């Protein structure tokens, strides 16, 4: 820990990275995109841009729910199971029309979020354990529902509206689902910085004791966060199913760790109190482009995993170094 005052230029540069991680991350993203483009020229076509946006969208939405939880110093390990469950329910109930099907899917999110929120907020169960347990419960419920003549068995038909949202094109390289993403993103960015709830979320993550003394009822904030998180997870699951045109009981499982990674890369601290959704958006885009690069390079799955891990670790390390905040 050097307390010596660094050269002012360096200090400014560091300060910029600390205060505006988005700037640095955008740089990383553009660089990565260009590098990928050199190997896959298709990336520079509208279609290349479009498929990047398309694939980043559900990841970014799952990462949004992770971001919210992490800002309060928690984590949500049940996001992907919630996403799977919700998407499956929507496809399973699509016969009843889009309103009922989507409503039921969001109800899944609401229920999961309420239970998580009550566990974490009211009963003060460690979020890791609470959401881990919840993931286990959901896995069991979904599988039980699927096997034999369970409540989820029977035909699954993707809602046409999800196909339209996921595969339609708004204009140029912009797919329809970016609209949903933009709405969610705008809502989150505005919500986190310009609403009372947003302020409370940061405050609870930064110092729960101070929050309590300032009269903030922490359980309410946590309940809201976990409900929002689960609703976002449901939405992510729905968009996911729209892109692939399929649902499966484990379709988003591979996105659990990337969703955390996107938030970490985006500068959200797992200890709470700092970060935001702008960074997460960039984190999700970076991971998507990185994925594409690794796919193009014909690297093995093995190499991809290793690089993935190293990059997440390196970025987290850089943040801790820059901001001088160390783990407890």
């Amino acid at each position: 820990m050097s307390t010596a005052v660094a050269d002012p230029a360096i200090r400014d540069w560091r300060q910029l990275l600390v205060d505006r991680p988005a700037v640095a991350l955008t740089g990383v993203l553009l660089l990565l995109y260009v590098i990928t483009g050199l190997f896959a020229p298709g990336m520079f076509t509208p279609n290349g841009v479009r498929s990047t946006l398309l694939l980043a969208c559900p990841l970014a939405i799952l990462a949004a729910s992770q971001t919210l939880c992490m800002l309060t110093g928690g984590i949500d390990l049940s996001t992907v199971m919630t996403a799977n469950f919700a998407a499956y329910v929507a496809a399973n109930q699509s016969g009843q029309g889009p309103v009922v099907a989507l409503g039921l899917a969001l109800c899944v999110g609401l229920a999961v979020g309420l239970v998580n929120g009550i566990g974490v907020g009211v009963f003060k169960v460690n979020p890791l354990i609470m959401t881990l347990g919840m993931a286990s419960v959901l896995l069991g419920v979904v599988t039980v529902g699927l096997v034999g003549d369970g409540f989820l068995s029977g035909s699954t038909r993707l809602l046409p509206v999800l196909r339209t949202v996921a595969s339609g094109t708004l204009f140029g390289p912009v797919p329809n689902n970016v609209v949903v993403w933009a709405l969610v993103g705008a809502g989150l960015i505005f919500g986190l910085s310009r609403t009372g709830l947003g302020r409370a979320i940061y405050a609870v993550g930064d110092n729960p004791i101070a929050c309590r003394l300032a009269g903030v009822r922490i359980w309410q904030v946590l309940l809201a966060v976990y409900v929002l998180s689960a609703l976002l997870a449901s939405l992510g699951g729905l968009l996911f199913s729209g892109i692939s045109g399929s649902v499966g009981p484990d379709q988003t499982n591979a996105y659990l760790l990337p969703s955390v990674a996107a938030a970490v890369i985006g500068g959200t601290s797992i200890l709470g109190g700092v970060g935001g959704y702008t960074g997460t958006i960039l984190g999700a885009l970076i991971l998507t482009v990185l994925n594409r690069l690794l796919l193009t390079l014909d690297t093995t799955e093995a190499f991809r995993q290793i690089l993935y891990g190293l990059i997440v670790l390196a970025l987290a390390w850089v943040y801790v170094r820059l901001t001088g905040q160390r783990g407890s």
Partner: protein
Amino acid sequence: GGGDDDTASGGSGAGSGQSGNFVIGVSNTLAGNGWREQMICSVKAQALASGKVSKVIAISKNGGPTEQIQDLQNLISQGANAIIVNPSDREKLNPVIQQATQKKIVVVAVDQAVSEPTAYVATNDQVAYGRLGAEWLAEKLGGKGNVLYMRGIDGVPADSDRDKGFQEVMAANPDIKIKEVFTGWDFTKGGDIAVQELGSGNYDGVWTSGIDYTVVNAFKTVGKDPVPVVGADNNQFIQQLLDGSPGAAVTNPAVIGGVGTAIALDVLQGKTVKRETLLTPEVWDAEQDKATLEANSFPDRDATFSSAVSVKPFTTYSNEQLFACKGPGE
């Protein structure tokens, strides 16, 4: 597996000819997968239709060989007379299967083979699956073009076998350029990869290892015209073919479970049965086999429902029994 058709050495005397109260165990390590669930339903349906079974105990939960070994042990402990197992590994289950046969339990590996000689094996011919689809595609493309080759999971026997059949055909068609990717037999992941590949590359045909309908969807997602896609007999894919997507379905019947059950019951009743039963896939062309496709289209079943619902002469259940998915006494 050997080409000579010995009978399996274990379990043949187990049933001692009596009928009626057999308990059949099922072990599956991919829970909630439509194809696998249908496989289990076909076991139940066949058990019911046979009238010789009192109970089917199905363990369908996610896991690998480690878990499956335990599942098999549990089925042995529960007193099963025959076990239908979709093995998660060719070798690793051998010791526990040996244990089962020592305890006079008939073990039938379905869908994928095990190397244990005391077990019976009923599989779809995966080499033929790879070859037939590839032949269809090569012919469709006139022997040249770019093909997106979407495999399953690297190293899994079924994938290697299919690759063998596929590569045989490709060796004969040197003008076809292939780009190989692995889908992990995951519809979502396969769809993702298809979006990326089709979005930025140019392909004249796609061969899939059964991850088919999400690939067809990907054409719409990236806004390109579909090219011929070789898929499996997934219900949704059949619909897409009927709706005019170019392509062909190569059957990979999930009711192989029912086939295995029929074999197990034969053994239990003292009949002599070949150790290996190999089912040869059929190819259903979108244009030429419309009638077959329509006969095997089940619009109100699941997207991944395997449309080949019976395998004669093994299965004897009705479609209703299969759809009901109820074993004896349920």
